């Protein structure tokens, strides 16, 4: 199989919560699965062209988000083409918000998103911080840490990623966490998300690989430490 091309959007500006951990996890697991991969970064005022097999974007500070938001508009078409053709993507926190319709900030007005997800986010006075546990039929129990004051509401067509068992999730009220559209995921869980939730990592990797070779099967790898860490995190206080 050819090399899987991982696109990391704005790694220099959207990187504050251990976001590289998700990239480290994807790359290492691809190594273990015997998949070759290439890591491509793209940031503000760089041209984005070509085809990618997996897209990642992390969370950043509000300041970072304004410049990123306007730059992302210029890349909207190519990113949406990818997502609509089934390319897997993971967006965390600020990345999740900007893949939605808009983010209404407290001090900097409205930052337009690129509407991959049918969600809107509004700044609140409540800082939603703490350990979070949620559950999904497809991915099992997902654990992580959240730290956001933006509250995200799902539109009519949006599917949540998971149900919150402990923690705030999208807005602290709806009981939902994250969003999934086609193979693109948005989530507030950093921590980072993938190492302790290998089912999510393998969904992204497996989808990327099967977009190239329909028959591709991920072989079993030893995730015993990850699963222990996952079970341990389920018991942590919020």
């Amino acid at each position: 199989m050819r090399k899987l091309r991982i696109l990391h959007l704005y790694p220099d500006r959207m990187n504050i919560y251990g976001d590289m951990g998700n990239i480290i996890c994807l790359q290492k697991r691809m190594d273990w699965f015997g998949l070759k991969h290439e890591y491509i970064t793209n940031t503000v005022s760089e041209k984005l062209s070509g085809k990618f097999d997996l897209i990642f974007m992390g969370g950043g500070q509000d300041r970072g988000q304004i410049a990123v938001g306007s730059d992302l508009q210029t890349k909207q078409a190519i990113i949406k083409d990818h997502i609509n053709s089934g390319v897997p993507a993971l967006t965390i926190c600020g990345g999740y918000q900007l893949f939605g319709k808009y983010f209404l900030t407290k001090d900097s007005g409205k930052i337009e998103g690129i509407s991959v997800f049918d969600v809107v986010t509004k700044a609140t006075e409540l800082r939603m911080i703490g350990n979070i546990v949620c559950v999904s039929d497809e991915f099992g129990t997902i654990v992580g840490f959240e730290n956001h004051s933006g509250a995200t509401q799902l539109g009519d067509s949006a599917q949540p990623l998971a149900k919150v068992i402990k923690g705030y999730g999208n807005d602290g009220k709806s009981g939902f966490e994250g969003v999934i559209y086609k193979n693109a995921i948005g989530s507030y869980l950093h921590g980072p998300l993938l190492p302790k939730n290998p089912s999510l990592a393998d969904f992204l990797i497996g989808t990327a690989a099967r977009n190239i070779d329909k028959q591709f099967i991920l072989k079993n790898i030893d995730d015993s430490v990850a699963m222990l860490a996952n079970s341990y995190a389920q018991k942590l206080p919020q």
Partner: protein
Amino acid sequence: MKKTAAILAAKVVKSASRIKKTAATAAPGYLAERIDPNLLKKLGSINFPDGVVLVTGTNGKTTTTKVLADVLRNGDISFVNNRAGSNLSRGVISSILTEANLRGFTQARVGLFEVDEAYLPEVAAALQPKMVVVTNLFRDQLDRYGELDSIANKFRQAFKNLHSTTLVLNADDPLVASLGMKLSGSLKVLYFGISDKSAFRALQHDNSADSIVDPFSGDTLRYTHRYFGHIGLYTTKSHSFSRPKPQINVTKLIKSSEKSIKINVKTTTELLSVSVNLSGNYNIYNVLPAFATAQLFRINNTIVLQTLANLSAAFGRTEAMQIDKTIFDLYLIKNPTGFNQVIQSFIQKDSKCPLILAINDNIADGRDVSWLWDCAIEDFASRVGPVILTGTRALDMQLRLIYAGYKGKIITETNAKNALKTALGLAKNNRVIVLPTYTAMLSLRSLINEANDETSKEFWQ
């Protein structure tokens, strides 16, 4: 009246906690602050005729404060210092009250206080300092402090209300450097920095950079040289924002060993050859504010030179402890930059000695351990071993090691005492490197002390 009641109450608590031998360093100040919320301001206005020095920033503030204390002491300037503990406003109050009479007067000419970033605005407003040192600003316990930009903005606001203060700022940290720009009024700025590009060997997996944009325009910074994290020599494409030229400037790193560092420092008036009795080149940043202090308090630079050449080994949040013949080198780790500095300075060579990683997630450690993924674990994964894991988040660390490609032996000991025992067995009278988070350091340190206490020999059986 309120003031006297507050001071009296604090003194009572203080002597009570002495009798009980508890280490409640902030409790008297906390109580006094509750009785009189303006107490710090009142204490500031009647004390410290020569002025107040505040030291803040993410990393290095304890070391920097200790260095400045030595400089003042050797310069024969009396001062009050909060070295015994808390760097919150109540800790500052406690330390003043310890030295004060019932009317709140101390004999000290200077107040020297380490201040937590979150409390700087409050403490600065109350004490109107003569000098504020900002060492650096890195991501640290985002669950507690919030984002860096908001901290920097709070600093900017706080500085607007100061008069005739000198800001002593790290020129090599873009966010800190920006605090000295576009200032209004009577504030002065002294920058310190390192201009010798050979001072730091770059790490391969350094993900700890936080502030890589111009804080004013949002333009991306270009680094001609990056030391660690976002510390280095930088400018924007249009040069609208660049590293300011330091008035206290390390022009050359002459020598750096496991015991000491030799540098050339150019100040506005002279070129000095400086010996620093510390290891770890990042500590250079923690001694440079000493020259600013000398300038502001009219202390001769020869006194600074003598002080730096004779710093005690307990500096630098680095501690060498011992059980029998085994040396335990403790390096506090609390954020990616601090962790990476330890890796950069102390684990670059193949040490192949036991390493204890003790990661807790108590409030004082930061409850979010995602920062472990921003540390350059890959850079030392092949250089150490075996690794002994302990702490509440040992599993997170184990997972991080696996993903970093560490192939050596991992021993997990839930119990910290067992972790030390295991390390003792493996070290064979040699050396053990210990990297603990804050609360893990406290417990390991007291366990090591306990092991050396004759009366508790059976403890280790």
